[in-house]
């Protein structure tokens, strides 16, 4: 009797464990997909941002006089 209980518990633990792995890997997958999408989106306008940064920095700070 005790043996059966232990086996059933083990089965339950295994199924919970497998479900956890499945779940966490799907979380990981979705996280990595989001990360990739974000990187791709930011790459697309990376140079536009640089051009805008230059404008902002030249607007905000005056430059040393030319020698």
């Amino acid at each position, binding site marked *: 009797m005790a043996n059966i209980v232990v086996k059933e518990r083990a089965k339950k633990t295994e199924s919970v464990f497998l479900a956890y792995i499945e779940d966490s890997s799907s979380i990981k997958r979705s996280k990595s997909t989001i990360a990739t999408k974000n*990187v791709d989106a930011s*790459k697309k*306008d990376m140079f*536009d941002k*640089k051009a805008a940064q230059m404008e902002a*920095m030249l607007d905000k700070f005056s430059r040393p006089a030319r020698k």
Partner: protein
Amino acid sequence: MLVEQYTTIEVNTDEYKNGEFFKKNNIFAACKFTSTGDSGSFELIVFIFRSKKSKYPNDYTLGFGKWNVDTSEVDDLFETRNRDVERILATVAQVAVNFLKRRPMAGIYAQGSTAARTRLYQKGISQNLGIVPPSLRIEGLVVKDNFGWADFKKGINYDAFLLPAK
């Protein structure tokens, strides 16, 4: 000591016209070169450009990275892992210097795509201050405490750089 450079090839920007980037910016110079090493060969491209809406007709932005054929975009976060950072930076710097020779009133703005890369550029500039052509100067920008632009000095952490002719 002069750092070895890659051989650059001027690029007809028509070759790269599909990207969204070209709709918003004018390209004034484009060169490509190939980084080679243990990780393989990668085509890198340097653009000197300016936003079409810019208020600063003499100032240009410098950007470089790996050309992505599939998306027609430049990936400036790409790492070649060819242990050739110094060689790449020397090549890009030479493109900037050549551009400034042709446009003596111009200034070229450079900022790393990440803070770490900006530090890397700073290190490269510090190591090569002695070989900056006498006709050029390098300014550094410190945003903290609204310090602003000043002539580049070793030992100061800058947020961006500007290369104008003197």
